């Protein structure tokens, strides 16, 4: 059964079609990786999936509930079902780590302060940050910030966690640590993960399913093995990270692709 479903989503910005009929389906407990080059529309798709942006057409279902037409107050109830890890962590810099993680708990539950403190410690320990409760975000490294942000994202035990470029700006070892955390959350706690990334190593490490976006469309969808075997030249070029014109399809040469990025169409 799908916990997240995207149906024929379209989005146009200034006459430019950023998403052109995207369809996706993510099963409960699955880790879905959405890949694609810069400007392919993956960040827009992520914003639509978390209700931050309304699509021009199409539907998004979270746990069976269509979210596109929901009012803000109704959407807030859906928001409690998912967590989000932003690219830079997006921790509130004026609060300590403990206060950051406690924020959703104090605002959305009626739990006693002592219980919240225990839960905060547990969540921070879960991401390997036990003992860092009183640290300010500015005192942490990039990887630690992301782990703390992940602790905040899972504070309410959501059924889905969205990740925006979780490995961006991190060294390969720290990126692997974040990947391990994503896999643990998925395998041990049964959380569904939707990861937007363009880092191939990480993507193939964590994915149960993968979708490759190109010019606002899903051009490949399947398990990592299926994606590896895809006969789509762009997918192969994207996996290899090659600039060879021979490896792209005739209609999308490297020059055309670069031109499309520069010109934004």
């Amino acid at each position, binding site marked *: 059964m799908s916990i997240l479903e995207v149906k024929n989503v379209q989005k146009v910005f200034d006459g430019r079609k950023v998403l052109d009929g995207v369809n996706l389906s993510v099963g409960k407990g699955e880790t879905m990786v959405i890949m694609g080059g810069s400007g392919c529309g993956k960040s827009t798709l992520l914003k639509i999936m*978390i209700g931050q942006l309304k699509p021009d057409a199409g539907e998004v279902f979270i746990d069976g509930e269509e979210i596109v037409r929901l009012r803000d107050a109704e959407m807030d109830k859906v928001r409690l079902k998912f*967590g*989000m890890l932003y690219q830079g962590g*997006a921790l*509130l810099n004026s609060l300590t780590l403990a206060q950051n993680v406690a*924020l959703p708990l104090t605002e959305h539950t009626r739990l006693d302060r002592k219980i919240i403190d225990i839960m905060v410690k547990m969540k921070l320990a879960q991401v390997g940050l036990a003992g860092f409760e009183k640290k300010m975000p500015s005192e942490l490294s990039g990887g630690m910030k992301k782990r703390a942000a992940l602790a905040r994202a899972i504070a309410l035990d959501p059924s889905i966690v969205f990740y925006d470029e979780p490995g961006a700006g991190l060294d390969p070892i720290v990126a692997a640590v974040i990947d391990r955390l994503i896999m643990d959350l998925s395998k041990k706690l049964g959380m569904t993960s939707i990861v937007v990334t363009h880092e191939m190593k990480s993507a193939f490490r964590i994915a149960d399913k993968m979708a490759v976006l190109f010019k606002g469309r899903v051009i490949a969808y399947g398990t990592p093995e299926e994606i590896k075997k895809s006969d789509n030249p762009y997918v192969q070029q994207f996996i290899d990270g090659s600039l060879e014109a021979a490896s792209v399809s005739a209609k999308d040469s490297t020059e055309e692709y670069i031109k499309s990025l520069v010109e934004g169409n």
Partner: protein
Amino acid sequence: MKEFAGKIGRSTISLIKHTGSMWRIFIEALYWIFIAPFRGHPCKMKYVVAQMNLIGIGSVPIVALVNFFFGITLAMLTSYQLKQVGSQELMAGLVGVSFTRELGPFLAAIVVASRVGAAITAEIGTMAVSEEIDALETMALKPIRFLVAPRLIALLIMLPCLTVVANVVGMMGGYIIGRFNLHIDSSFYIKLTFDYLVFKDIWTGLIKSVAFAVMIALIGCYQGLTVRGGAAGVGISTTQSVVQSIIFIIIIDCLFNAWFYFI
């Protein structure tokens, strides 16, 4: 000509759009201040107190300094003019009325707009570019409740307080000239000041300071929330916030003065 007309049209539409957005933020902030507490969602007092400290207590020295020297300057200029008609002692009342009606609220608002308005925009703007505001929304937490409402409450409380400080210190500046330059006796100087002051002078100034507080908070927060384009965008919005706040303070001040003048 066509291009010029188009530019004016676009600017007008943009102004209407921004005013509409600011109005919506104001209404939502009022909801979080006056209605939400009765529905079990009070504004966090610790955020309000922190902002009051930052906005109010932190601004006292500079507000006092500016108004003290302005009081001295005003006293010198007026006594220089009054000397020609032989009524230098009238300076005490003139300084008193000038500060309570106009200079106190105006100078306090200008100082706060420059110091606090800029800080509000820079802080909220930095939060916007580092996705902290998006994160709040994703956690189903309202940025207006967490960021705008505490600042608006703090400014509504602290700017009138700072205005009182500005009035008192400005009059003290006048007193320095009256006492040490014009050799007016202290008690007589105070009597002269209160002889010319009426209650209306004080409350009109305080009402203006409340309007200034709303303007500074709204412009500061709106500019911060709408920052685009990273660090450079924060810089641009911060400058715009200060410039717009000062312009609107002057316009509102003029409108209030006209209103109080004719009533």
